[in-house]
């Protein structure tokens, strides 16, 4: 079987399919561009911090920015986003403050998740951007359950789960897709096929030529989209959301993109892939393509681009100063909070034990070496 790859613009930003082109105002175009550029620059700067040892871990989405920012734009703010760990653009698009973003990376006293998770595991409830879980695919049924609850409560909200193509091999992906289609819930299962699951190429996950075609077996539409074309992303996610709101059920979207960076800051892709491959994908860079599109529409002039870059760099610098000057640790007692709604007897006892220990021996420092 053959699925068409949905595109709106070509690699040079020229419109191929005006009938799919979302009608976006100049302000919306600028906001999209700005958020993509923000993620790009943020990733570079944060990775550098990691290399300098100022941060424990980082994950970039270099080359995949259009997938999450396009999807976020296509949704309403009330719709729920269940991210994997490479979609921070969706939260930033919705207004996640950079200072808070960095406090999470440092796990410091102002980290909203109180230093309990590794960097990049954000949780932003007021933006309906649900807490990130490291195990791949495990959040997909939650999006299905949320969409199901929205349907039962007739609220018109949809829930979108982002996941990589590697997650499509997990049992929970199949179970979730089956549940979603069976109950016709307004869920969008958005598979970012970025070519690599750490060191395994996408061809090592499945015998099928596409991931989108798996939708057919579950009884839902499968859509293949150029994930480096933000306008195409907006088009397909809008359609999927509209289907969900009309009560027609879920959609599986495979966004074809490419992980140009490493899996994480702990990974070295030179050990398993040809460096020519990411190079090749630079030609289809989602930001460059969108820039050319906006320039052709007369929205992105040279001054806007330069000014945006400058503004982003300044904001990142300010956020970094802010985050690095916060007390480095959350309060000791927070270790025992939020395990349960109220701290039970045994945890109160353990907390008292730790506090007494620290009072006796002083603050903990990590062992050397």
């Amino acid at each position, binding site marked *: 079987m053959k699925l068409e790859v949905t595109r709106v613009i070509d690699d040079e930003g020229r419109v191929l399919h005006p009938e799919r082109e979302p009608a976006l105002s100049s302000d919306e175009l600028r906001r999209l561009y700005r958020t993509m550029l923000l993620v790009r620059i943020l990733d570079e700067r944060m990775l550098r911090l990691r290399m300098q040892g100022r941060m424990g871990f980082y994950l970039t989405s270099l080359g995949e920015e259009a997938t999450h920012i396009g999807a976020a734009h296509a949704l309403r703010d009330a719709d729920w986003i269940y991210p994997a760990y490479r979609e921070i653009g969706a939260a930033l698009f919705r207004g996640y403050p950079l200072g808070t973003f960095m406090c999470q990376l440092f796990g410091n006293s102002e980290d*909203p998740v109180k230093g*309990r998770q590794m960097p990049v595991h954000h949780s932003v409830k007021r933006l309906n951007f649900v*807490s990130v879980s490291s195990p791949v695919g495990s959040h997909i*049924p*939650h999006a299905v359950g949320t969409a199901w609850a929205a349907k039962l409560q007739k609220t018109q909200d949809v829930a979108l789960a982002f996941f990589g193509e590697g997650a499509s091999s997990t049992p929970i992906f199949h179970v979730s897709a089956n*549940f979603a289609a069976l109950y016709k819930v307004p869920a969008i299962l958005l598979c970012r096929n970025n070519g690599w699951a750490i060191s395994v190429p996408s061809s090592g996950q499945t015998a099928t030529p596409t991931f989108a075609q798996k939708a057919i077996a579950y009884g839902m539409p499968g859509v293949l989209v150029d994930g480096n074309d933000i306008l195409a992303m907006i088009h397909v996610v809008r359609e999927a959301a509209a289907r969900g709101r009309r009560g027609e059920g879920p959609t599986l979207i495979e966004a074809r993109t490419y992980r140009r960076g490493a899996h994480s800051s702990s990974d070295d892709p030179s050990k398993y892939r040809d460096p020519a491959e990411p190079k090749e994908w630079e030609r289809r860079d989602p930001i460059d393509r969108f820039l050319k599109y906006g320039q052709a529409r007369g929205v992105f002039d040279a001054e806007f681009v330069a000014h945006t870059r400058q503004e982003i760099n300044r904001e990142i610098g300010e956020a970094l100063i802010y985050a690095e000057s916060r007390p480095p640790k959350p309060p000791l007692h927070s270790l025992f909070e939020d*395990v*349960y*709604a109220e701290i039970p007897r045994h945890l109160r006892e353990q907390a008292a034990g730790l506090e007494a220990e620290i009072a006796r021996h002083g603050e903990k420092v990590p062992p050397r070496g």
Partner: protein
Amino acid sequence: MAEMNLIQAVNDALRVEMRRDPRVVVLGEDVGRFGGVFQVTVGLREEFGADRCIDTPLAESGIVGAAIGMALYGLRPVAEIQFGDYIYPAYDQIVNELAKIRYRSGGEYAAPVVIRTPIGGGIKGGHYHSQSPEALFTHIPGLTVVCPSNPIDAKGLLASAIRGEDPVIFMEPKRYYHKSRADVPEGEYTIPIGEAKVVRSGSQVTILTWSAMVHTALEAAQKGEAEGLDLEVVDLRTLVPFDEAAILASVKKTGRVVIVHEAPRTSGFGAELAATIAEKAILHLEAPILRVTGFDTPFPYTLEHEYLPDADRILDAVGRVLSF
């Protein structure tokens, strides 16, 4: 009051809570049209509709995973896992997601899901319909583990679980689904989670137990009485958080402890109780703490009554702690 067996009491709790709170939904395999393989959810679909009493596909991970997503959105899902033996496909969802979502989100999100599942043997179910996996959940921070033994506690504790803000693993002793009968308060009724109950007061030995083994321990105490023994039986009812004060009070009174559970011995919850007693009341003990448990084998089919702790095995242990 109305006389009910355990099945009817759980059904009543579900019905009362579903009437009280429209956010409560029940989901699981065969729970709708059929009313569950043990008939626990009978009549709920008729009263509340297919949207609130949901027959799911055969996938425990999906049942729990979807329930988590529903709870995050504001519903109060009560998931049924048909047998405790089939909960393992959902274990990742329970351990890595359900138990951690509040903590890992800095308290932003909570998933108050109740997972009901029948446990225990004695029903000729072999090792895939007889396991007692409660200890696998007591080791997971974030979970509350409730193991009632009788209809009154089952109703009151399930209602509390549904109303609470935390995820609860609610394990029902299937061997006593029909056999355990009691006058159960009608209408809204709750029992606080985390409180043990002295179900038989005695002075010589404390028997700590829960779930189906409460009945076996009471039988042993009764048998012992004929031999002049005065045994105290404490039904823990909740394993996490367990009622340490009640346990220590009983231990200090009797000075002798036998812990009884049906699950295998090694790393069973009895070990946690024994350690706690040793840490906090060792000087009150007159004898070693003994455990009477299932063996460290898979649960057998034909020899299940050889496997299961019974009154004789408990009384042997009682004799050993008394003669120490």
